[in-house]
């Protein structure tokens, strides 16, 4: 019968109406992001608060859009100082390739998704400025400590 489909459609729409909303009231409620969600790149730190980055430049070379930059000063004793670790968030596509490439887990993809800014200058972020770069030896030390602790299974 012509029109049966229309009535059936009405029935379906009514049924959907009774199912209730699936949206959230955004600024007041927020959805939980999955653990793997990729947003802005953020630096990570050792427990003592010093950055994990060794200024090896792997991430700078890997980034397809060339938006990470690292100004490094090498002192006489070969230790390095990071003058500025620059990150152009406005051009970042959040692909995660830099994070995957970093051999020291010194950067991670953050979960902060409210990235809009009113001042374009804020799109040029500085991840690290004027800090000593960690050495590979420090990473090794930490690793040894962690495995030692796991072996002993004792104090923190």
């Amino acid at each position: 019968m012509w029109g049966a489909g229309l009535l059936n459609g009405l029935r379906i729409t009514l049924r959907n109406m009774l199912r209730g909303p699936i949206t959230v009231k955004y600024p007041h409620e927020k959805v939980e992001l999955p653990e793997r969600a990729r947003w802005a790149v953020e630096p990570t730190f050792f427990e003592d608060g010093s950055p994990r980055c060794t200024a090896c430049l792997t991430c700078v070379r890997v980034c397809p859009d060339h938006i990470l930059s690292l100004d490094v000063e090498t002192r006489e004793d070969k230790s390095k100082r990071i003058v500025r670790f620059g990150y152009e968030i406005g051009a970042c596509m959040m692909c995660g390739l830099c994070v995957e490439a970093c051999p020291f887990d010194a950067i991670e993809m953050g979960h902060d998704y409210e990235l809009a800014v009113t001042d374009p200058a804020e799109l040029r972020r500085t991840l690290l400025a004027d800090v000593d770069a960690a050495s590979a030896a420090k990473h090794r030390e930490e690793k040894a400590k962690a495995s030692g602790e796991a072996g002993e299974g004792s104090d923190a």
Partner: protein
Amino acid sequence: MSDPRYEIYEAGLIGEGMHTPPVLPAGLRRAPGGVDGLRTEHLVVNMGPQHPSTHGVLRMIVELDGEEVVTAEASIGYLHRGIEKVAEHRRYDALGTLMDRGDYVAGIMGELAAALATEQLLEVEVPPKANWLRSLTSELNRIASHLVWFGTFGLDTGAMGQFLYAMRDREALLDILEAISGQRMMFNYVRPGGVVRDLPPGIDAKIREFVDTFENVYLPEHDALLGGNEIFQSRVKGIGVITREQALAFGLTGPNLRASGVKYDVRVDRPYAAYPELDFEVPVGEAGDAWDRYLVRMEEMRQAARMIRQCIDGMPEGPHMAKVPKLIKPPAGEVYAAVESARGETGVHLVSDGSEHPYRFRYRGPSLFALQALEEILPGHLLADVVMIIGSTDVMMGEIDR
């Protein structure tokens, strides 16, 4: 009626034959002036690029005789980003980020095409688990893409509700894909050698739950709501017929080709990923009109749901990534790899000169061919049908303009 403006009606100048489409001599695209004796001027209408019904930034230049289309010309390039040229400066493992932005509604399949091409160059064997994960995410993405088509196709015909319901289901799918890959549309999940991560714990239950409700509740509802609607049926049946010969001549692939009665599916005819081991059917239409394209895509969603369940059940154990050098430098050579994306055969042609960047990267977007066919199909239709015919072919400007 004494008004001189109406004399023309009384003189019988307007009557039968006015609404038959102008017959075009072979090879001639422009009808000689006017209907019958009226000598009305043709009207050129620019549909788009901002017109909401032209799916992105497509501009159709339609020449009208009254309500009838005489010629139609697609003007493309508003979304051009030079993806093929940019790729010549990208490393092989970053090609997927470009493919995501080609067909941005079905990104996984584009990534897969680029990864398959790179693997052919490198001659690496992909572990079985990676193949199954690729098929699983492809099919999840296919449903998400078809849902966008389903919602907007209904919008083109004037229906509204199904769009919201389709977006609700797509949202659930995007949540699943986000949990697997990390992002909702620009996944960057498939890489040369496999996939970048295994499934997160607990996601199979979520996928199973989605597929069960989608297949048993939501999809039949969608079909009844739009396809069961008599007004919708009477509007889409018989319009935009693409014959078998035309479809083949224009190089159509995917649901558009299958709706015209040609059983060609890259998943079956040039198998890749885990498709040889999956059990699914390839729906084929007969008439090649907008209604058949609707039926084929709806059936494809059903088959995709079937495949997702098989993928979850049969997921093998093992590594999800083959051993691939960190800096991919394939030997010099030339390869072509294709996948069946939601719109047809998405192909990647790679030429390598042995360096870390491709020498040439060519992206075959199936929508481009569908759009070319439209120029041939549209003349003779009413203006109101134009948007529906465009909608029925599911063209995606991201991969046309690249």
